[in-house]
């Protein structure tokens, strides 16, 4: 029980990453695979923020005077993930537009039925 | 001031829980929409304003949040109800009145 409470954020982020990988490995539908990619993206963001967390600390915003600078979480990780989320949206939109194009060309979204994909 | 805030927040939290209970217990989509709109709008209004009363410095910002909830929540629920009416989700068997169907018939006979 104690182990569970200490590592609950790690369990959540790795659970999301592995569920996303499982969807990517076993499903045949393109949109389902992109949903898996989205879930995996969220899990990786959660993992990074978890690594930057400091216990009993607060956010690095000096909005009121009585804040202790020794007692703050890591700002570098948050800055990295902030940009990664927006990039994730652009990549997602581009992948979905590719799947629309594939559907219009082949008439299906099942990757087993697309002939040129077998190599 | 603190105790007034605690009481108002408690009322709001109870309303939120009752709304969620309605989502789980009621029989069809339209009944669930009743619980999901009215109960949770009132509940979140009380909860957020109660937090603002507990901490008087936050009051105006919490009031803005609750006003936005009052504006946006009915719109989305109306859109969901209309959409499920249009795609023909069935009513609960025990329901006694169907005003929307009556209105459609009235408009056809016009």
């Amino acid at each position, binding site marked *: 029980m104690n182990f569970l409470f200490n590592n609950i954020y790690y369990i959540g982020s790795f659970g999301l990453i592995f569920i996303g990988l499982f969807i990517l490995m076993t499903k045949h539908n393109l949109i389902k695979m992109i949903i898996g990619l989205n879930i995996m993206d969220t899990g990786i963001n959660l993992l990074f923020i978890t690594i930057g967390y400091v216990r009993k600390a607060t956010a690095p915003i000096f909005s009121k005077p009585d804040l202790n600078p020794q007692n703050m979480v890591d700002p570098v990780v948050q800055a990295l993930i902030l940009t990664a989320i927006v990039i994730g949206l652009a990549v997602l939109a581009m992948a979905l537009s590719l799947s*629309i194009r594939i559907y219009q060309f082949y008439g299906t979204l099942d990757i087993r039925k697309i002939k040129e994909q077998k190599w | 001031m603190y105790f007034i805030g605690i009481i108002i927040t408690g009322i709001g939290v109870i309303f939120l829980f009752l709304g969620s209970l309605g989502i789980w217990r009621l029989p069809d989509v339209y009944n669930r929409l009743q619980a999901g709109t009215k109960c949770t709008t009132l509940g979140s209004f009380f909860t957020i304003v109660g937090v603002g009363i507990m901490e008087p410095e936050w009051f105006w910002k919490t009031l803005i949040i609750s006003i936005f909830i009052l504006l946006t929540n009915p719109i989305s629920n109306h859109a969901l109800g209309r959409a499920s009416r249009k795609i023909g989700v069935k009513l609960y068997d025990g329901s006694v009145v169907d005003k929307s169907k009556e209105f459609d018939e009235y408009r056809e006979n016009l």
Partner: protein
Amino acid sequence: MIFVITFLVFVMLASAIFACISIDLLNAVIASGLVSLITAILFYTLQAPDVAMAEASIGAALVTAIFVITIRRTERKE
């Protein structure tokens, strides 16, 4: 506090699994919206309000809308 966080993590994982097993793609999109919603709460409890705001403003509206538009242009069943 820690009990609530544990509970939220398990709800998040369960909805991710539901997104994996559902046949109808619209259900999967709704479940992934729920995953994004709860992840924003977890970012908030990890003291990262900037990231929580980005996840809320992107995951709540834009990702759902983009998926829904794509499903309308293609087909809905898996």
